[in-house]
């Protein structure tokens, strides 16, 4: 027992403790610069390549929308989980968050992705939601579409145009269309 009391006495008689006790001050409530907050726009031009939508792991967190002066990604707080993957995936540095962009430039890291579309003919009920919702090839040449309803079923026209944005997957009522997004994290060797 005596050891314990002496221990506590010694604990409370340390100069550091006394100083802290008398001059107690809560740490300032600052957000450190390295915190990955919601992605913000850097002001660079978005080319609507949908890489951010492709990699986003949370449902409904990001959408690339068309405004009067061009395309712009929109982040929805309440859905966004602040993982920072969209910042890393964006090839044009449109978004930034914390130190992610800085670290990416420093380490020359990035993601490389390939996409594979597959349609389950047995489940597909040919509603055409996927073709209508697909954001690729909206204007311009009519051949620039990824999907098309033809011969009584969905046909994949140009699978190399697919950006993996999974809009078709989300809009498909019965999971007939699937986009496999094979992503790998890569790093260029230091020059």
């Amino acid at each position, binding site marked *: 027992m005596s050891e314990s009391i002496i221990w506590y006495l010694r604990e409370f008689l340390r100069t550091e403790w006394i100083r802290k006790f008398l001059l107690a001050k809560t740490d300032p409530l600052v957000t450190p610069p*390295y915190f990955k907050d919601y992605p913000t726009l850097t002001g660079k031009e978005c080319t609507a390549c949908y890489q951010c939508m492709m990699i986003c792991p949370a449902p409904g967190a990001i959408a690339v929308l068309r405004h009067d002066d061009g395309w712009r990604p929109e982040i929805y707080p309440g859905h966004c989980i602040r993982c920072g993957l969209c910042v890393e995936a964006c090839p044009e540095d449109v978004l930034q968050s914390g130190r992610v962009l800085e670290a990416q430039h420093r*380490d020359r890291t990035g993601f490389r992705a390939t996409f594979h579309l597959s349609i389950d003919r047995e489940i597909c009920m040919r509603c055409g939601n996927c073709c209508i919702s697909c954001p690729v090839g909206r204007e311009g040449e009519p051949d620039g579409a990824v999907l098309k309803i033809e011969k009584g079923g969905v046909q994949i026209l140009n699978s190399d145009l697919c950006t993996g944005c999974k809009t078709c997957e989300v809009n498909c009522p019965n999971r007939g269309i699937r986009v496999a997004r094979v992503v790998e994290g890569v790093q260029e060797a230091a020059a």
Partner: protein
Amino acid sequence: MKKTVDVSIPIGPMHPCWKEPIRLKCETIGERVLRTEVELGYMKKGIERIMRGRPWQEVMFLAERICGICSVIHNMVFIEAMEGISGIAVPPRAAYLRVVVNELDRMESHILANFSYCYTIEHETLAMYLLNVREIVLDQLERITGSRINTAYMIPGGVRFDITEEDAAALLAGLARVEEDVERYTRMFATSYLIALRSRGVGTMTREKAIEAHAVGPTGRASNVPECDLRLQHPTYQKLGFTPVCRTEGDNFARNMVRFDEVMQSISLIRQCIGQLPEGPIRGGGACTAGEITYQGEAPRGELTYYIKSDEYGRIIDITVRTPSIMNIEACTHHMINDVTSVADVTSTFISSDPCVACTER
């Protein structure tokens, strides 16, 4: 089986001591607890069901959100399992950085567990001390990964961010502060008579019972089962030369002391890692492919098992997760709490096994 029972006491699902909902139903004679039944299902979200058919970049976040406290190890085990399936090699620098982040997460989790134990036995001073130390650890975690909890640091073939010289220096400085503080708090915990009254000899579990219920992690190691530490089988830890902490008492006190000792051990492991950190790239690339694997890793609470089956594009076909809390909660409620002499010790014994309901139910 019929037993003469005086009162049946339900504890939970909402209880001041418990941060997560779980319901214990204790059957008591006087104050002595005869047996306990557990009612789960308050956190069942069906994560394994929604994981199916998704690629790694989505499942990684779901795996992380199985448990918010030990999120890094869920991330690490899932990613290493995917690497095992696809045969992706990890650059040595990334492997060491993974260990650094994993050990920081382990420290954070252990300190939180000891905080809740001290809070439950109403030793609020020590509890608040520990919670403040945890903030320093979280700062270091945030410095490296960019977020405090749910860090999403590891990806197949490497890690997401490199560590700079300044970050490493700040990390070591933070660790020095943590070490100094935790050493004092360990001494406070070990020598305090009030804590000893509530902890020593309460909720004991023998080695046989621990093996029978497959208790893992600090709960198992406090009952003298040192071989349950799976870090012994991890290649990077083997390089670092690692011996598990072990105690023989098997009571609440031992479980908390094991966690304190492991925090100190983690600090030395991180120092070793930073000291030996090799130069080189942090990402090696490599796509996930088809395969099947059962992979295990050591979470802060014990052994974590992922069984994964994937298709040719790296999408998950089948996945089963076995988290350490399943074993520990079961061991706790059916072996430790039985014959606890007072109902007040039920909560403290339960908390001492570091239960994580979100893990258990997923």
